[in-house]
């Protein structure tokens, strides 16, 4: 397979990082890795890379050819660095169309783990909205179809189960964000058969650690994490601050990588889905897909450090 210049440069950079870095974050359990960090989906055992790509805000660019091309480069960087999970929703304006255009430009429909959502209070519109989203993405079926923010979840879940049984979708899930309706989500996770949940979790928003993530572990539910950078707020608050010593020792050179490694180092988390509109930011994000992860005490150190800033 011929490598493009972009693939070569990115591959070299990531390989170099893996070679030169000392045991990342001094993990005493010795789980150093040089390949992409992948996690199993509990319901099937299928593995997916632990860093995915969200599209909230970033891919809603309408029909602007210049911006569509830019977003195509972002997706290309993501795929080249080993990412597969792409998440979108009908709520995100033209994002699904732009994802579809980017996939078409890259001829990459079969390289993504496609995660879409149903977002309508009309509980009989599950199939119709799924078909509409499929047309925008240009894929034959979604790997994962989720119920967005629990909207009309009872009716949608029933239909999604039928669709999964008939092979129209592979996995079903339910989502929340910004810490909304965690009590409702917990009840659904405890009583319904789900493959995935999606929730907000980051170094500052840690409410999910108390109940949702333990339930996911107990019930064998994969977890997608949205807003791992708190919608960019973490950068606005901490980017000008120095990284903690433990990060520098480990070769983690950016806050993005550190924030993401904090998220995916939780044993219940399957994949974090940060969103970005910039290629260089995507490269920083994807660096978190390689190397070691912090252990429990190092995670606590990170939280304490961030809180102290």
């Amino acid at each position, binding site marked *: 397979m011929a490598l493009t210049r972009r693939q070569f440069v990115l591959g070299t950079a990531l390989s170099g990082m893996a070679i030169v870095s000392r045991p990342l974050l001094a993990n005493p359990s010795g789980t150093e890795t040089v390949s992409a960090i992948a996690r199993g989906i509990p319901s099937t055992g299928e593995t997916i890379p632990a860093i995915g790509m969200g599209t909230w805000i*970033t891919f*809603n660019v309408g029909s*602007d050819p210049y911006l569509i091309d830019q977003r195509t480069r972002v997706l290309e960087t993501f795929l080249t660095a080993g990412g597969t999970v792409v998440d979108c929703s009908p709520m995100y*304006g033209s994002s699904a169309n732009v994802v579809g255009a980017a996939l078409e430009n890259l001829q990459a429909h079969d390289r993504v783990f496609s995660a879409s959502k149903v977002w*309508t209070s009309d509980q009989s519109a599950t199939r119709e909205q799924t078909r509409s989203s499929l047309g925008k993405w240009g894929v034959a079926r979604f790997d994962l179809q989720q119920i967005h923010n629990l909207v009309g979840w009872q009716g949608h879940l029933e239909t999604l189960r039928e669709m999964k049984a008939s092979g129209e979708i592979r996995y079903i899930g339910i989502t929340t964000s910004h810490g*909304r309706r965690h009590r409702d989500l917990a009840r659904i996770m405890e009583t319904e058969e789900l493959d995935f949940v999606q929730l907000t979790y980051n170094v500052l928003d840690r409410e999910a650690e108390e109940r949702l993530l333990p339930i996911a572990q107990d019930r064998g539910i994969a977890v997608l994490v949205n807003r791992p950078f708190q*919608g960019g707020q973490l950068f606005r608050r901490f980017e000008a601050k120095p990284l903690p010593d433990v990060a520098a020792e480990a070769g983690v050179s950016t806050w993005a990588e550190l924030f993401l490694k904090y998220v995916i180092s939780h044993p219940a988390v399957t994949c974090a889905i940060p969103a970005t509109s910039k290629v260089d930011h995507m490269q920083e994000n994807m660096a978190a897909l390689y190397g070691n992860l912090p252990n429990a005490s190092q995670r606590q150190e990170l939280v304490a450090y961030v809180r102290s800033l």
Partner: protein
Amino acid sequence: MRTDVWTTYSLQDLLMFGPEVYLRLCVRLNQDFWPWQLPVVVLGLLVPVLLGRPEASLRRLAWLAIASAWVLSGAGFLLTYYSEINWPAAGLGWAFVVQGVLLAGLGLRSVSRPLNPQGRRFQLVWWLTVILLPWVTVLESGTVQALAVFGLAPGVTVAATNLVPGALSGRQGWLLVPIPLLWLTFSAATFWTLQVYWLLVLPVVGLVMLVIGYWLSPSPAQSLDRQSAHHDPAHR
């Protein structure tokens, strides 16, 4: 969708695009419309002159230009470009078309007399708005291609033409106030949420123009300028 679900969303959650994408709308509009900006701006600059002319046909032309500016901003910027990334823009686009129709109807009805005896100040404020305000988007974006041209970009169009309701006689001018106020509120909330603070100048100036329009009004009941009452006795 359940009401309690909507109450969990903040304005920021519902704004599904970033500043770059919004400013690109101005760039695309200018690229697609070029070179028609030039005659549109020239006609826009002539509006206050034409409104003060004694010939009814010229005043009629001015009113049609004002109405067309609203329709063009609504059908062009809002319906064709902005609504792709922000669904409320579609509704606002149609509201702009309605405002254009209202302006044409009310303006042509009042065409029997020159609009405003305070014409010099009206002209000066109008020209300053049409000439200076478009540069706000340039300041925010860093590119002259994002110039918010009168007649195409809604912010500048609304700001300049907000002088008009106060200049109309009687109560009919108030019919022209709700849609501009709706736009000013919507755009101010949008720019605030996007944290594009330069662009907040657009709705702020738009609101100031509305006030100035009534201040320059010839009606003594509406005007702070006592001189204007003396120049328009027929108005009472």
